[in-house]
């Protein structure tokens, strides 16, 4: 089994890249913000609870020193059983507890650091039913020393915290969505010039524009300048290639013409054999020069060419070329039609078709053009003998077998076909209602 080719890495769109990066950043920022706010909230709520407990400790200490603890009437929330708000004071063998403990005890599980004697310090613990408690512990010096513990349920901390964090998460989520939507809009706006550039380039390719407009954002302008330079260079190369072909044509044909004239003298070419050679050379030179000219084509045009004036000029030329034969060429080409072809190429396509029609017609040639769904259609008809299907196929095929091509009947047709195909069009041959050949040239609109 041949090794399977790895598929090329997908070219992700700029928009996807920008959006992905933005989404990651926004998400990270929101998570960090959420965590920070959570920590602050936690501290704040715990601070509130501890303040409450410390106030209770201060009251208990005062009660203890006044010996009033045994008759203490607890105020809410320390009077109720259940929620976990409680206190306990131990001095020697004496123990006082809040009403809420109902004789149970607070167990200190994790005593906090007592950095500041004389002030309450934090600790964790459990209640008589094992519920987790937040404690504040104060050690009162004396003989014997007393320990005052005030407790609040952890739920008092985490309940409000959960509520606040839920709202916070919702708010952050909405904020995140808004930010991502805003970024998407920004990316869209930011990339709009690229979309316009693509449309402009497509217009250049279709021949609706000659250059990409230079009024562009600063980031794209250098690219557009380079693009236009490339387009200009292409046009120049094309021009140069055509110039070379023209020079080559001149260089080859002038001596050939001289030879042809010289051989008209029977003394120089008694049996006409040299003459046939010259004719053959001429055909080959013509053929290959046309091929060279076709090869010097861009296959696309910069700008559009109006159809009607070109057809009209060709009409004037062909009427004079066939003045002796007296051909009547009827034109029906709407003024508003244009095609995305170089003028020279259009001349070449139409000239070959109309010339062929004039050569084979009896007296009439008709050129009509119309805009259709598939593009612009130019129809050239004559009242000559026409071609049957097999002959038409042979004529069209001749252009394809380039090397053995012996130009003869309708040599212009394969050239026209080739040109039309370069422009994304086509050429079909059929029978005209005038009686002769109907050549239908289709070009993109």
């Amino acid at each position, binding site marked *: 089994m041949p090794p399977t080719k790895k598929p090329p890495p997908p070219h992700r769109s700029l928009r996807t890249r920008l959006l992905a990066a933005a989404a990651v950043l926004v998400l990270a920022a929101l998570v960090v913000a959420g965590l920070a706010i959570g920590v602050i909230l936690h501290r704040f709520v715990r601070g509130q609870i501890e303040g409450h407990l410390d106030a209770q400790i201060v009251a208990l200490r005062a009660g203890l020193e006044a010996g009033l603890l045994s008759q203490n009437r607890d105020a809410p929330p320390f009077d109720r059983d259940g929620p976990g708000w409680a206190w306990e004071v131990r001095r020697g063998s004496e123990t006082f507890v809040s009403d809420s403990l109902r004789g149970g005890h607070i167990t200190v599980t994790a005593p906090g650091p007592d950095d500041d004697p004389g002030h309450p310090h934090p600790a964790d613990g459990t209640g008589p039913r094992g519920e987790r408690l937040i404690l504040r512990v104060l050690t009162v010096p004396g003989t014997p020393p007393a320990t005052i513990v005030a407790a609040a349920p952890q739920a008092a901390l985490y309940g409000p915290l959960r509520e606040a964090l839920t709202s916070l998460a919702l708010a952050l989520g909405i904020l995140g969505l808004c930010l991502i939507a805003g970024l998407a809009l920004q990316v869209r706006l930011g990339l709009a010039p690229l979309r316009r550039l693509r449309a402009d380039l497509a217009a250049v390719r279709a021949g609706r524009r000659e250059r990409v407009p230079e009024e562009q954002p600063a980031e794209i302008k250098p690219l557009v300048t380079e693009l236009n330079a490339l387009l200009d260079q292409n046009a120049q190369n094309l021009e140069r290639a055509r110039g070379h072909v023209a020079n080559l044509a001149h260089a080859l044909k002038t001596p050939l013409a001289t030879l042809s004239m010289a051989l008209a*003298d029977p003394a120089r070419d008694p049996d006409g054999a040299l003459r046939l050679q010259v004719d053959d050379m001429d055909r080959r030179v013509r053929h290959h020069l046309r091929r060279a000219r076709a090869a010097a084509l861009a296959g696309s045009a910069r700008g559009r060419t109006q159809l009607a004036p070109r057809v009209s000029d060709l009409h004037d030329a062909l009427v*004079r070329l066939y003045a002796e034969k007296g051909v009547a060429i009827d034109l029906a080409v709407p003024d508003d039609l244009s095609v995305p072809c170089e003028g020279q190429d259009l001349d070449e396509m139409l000239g070959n078709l109309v010339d062929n029609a004039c050569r084979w017609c009896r007296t009439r040639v008709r050129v009509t053009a119309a805009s259709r769904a598939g593009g612009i259609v130019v129809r050239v008809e004559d009242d000559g003998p026409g071609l049957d299907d097999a002959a038409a196929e042979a004529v069209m095929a001749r252009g394809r077998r380039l090397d053995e091509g012996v130009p003869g009947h309708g040599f212009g047709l394969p050239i026209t076909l080739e040109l039309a195909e370069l422009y994304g069009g086509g050429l079909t041959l059929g029978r005209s209602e005038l009686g002769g050949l109907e050549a239908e040239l289709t070009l993109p609109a």
Partner: protein
Amino acid sequence: MKILLVEDDTALATELAKVLRAENFVLDRAATGEDAQHLGETEGYDAVVLDLGLPKGDGVSVLRAWRAAGRTLPVLVLTARDGWSDKVAAFKAGADDYLVKPVRVEELVIRLRALVRRSQGGGASRIACGPLSFDTGLGAFEHEGLPLKLTGLEWRVLSCLMLNRDAVVPRPHLIERVYEGDADVDSNSVEVIITRLRRKIAPARIESVRGHGYRLHADPA
């Protein structure tokens, strides 16, 4: 028929001149656009064979200059350029016919003659004048239905008179059409040719118009 041959390639111009002279054309030659323009504007020609790629003035520019100066002489463009845009450009500049090099001598001659005939208002390719008839396409004369044998100079004089039959052709005009620009013309030589022609074409006759020139008549009167 007098032709201005504009061709910058010496070898080709020489061969062209040779074959055209063999076909009884009278030739002046120009090798540059400048010369061609000058000759076309000052001399009288029945037609011009014009190359397009010329030193000192492109053929199309020369043609345009002639037309701008009101010169209507028929111009046959003979060039290596075979693109339709080139053809269209030449016709727009005022060309009357267009041939691509290399061209067969027969084709060139037929088209030149047809061009001259059309430019001189002859719609038909056969002109008749009494017992004489002239096939402008083939360049052949017939006299009372039989081919008429003529020398080169006789043919030139008679074709010029035939194309302008029943009108007086001024003597200088005739000399211009018969001899090449730099030929040393003996003033009597035209008279000698006319005399010989008169014998050959009777009863049609060539009338001498004193101080003007000659006129070809159909009626023997």
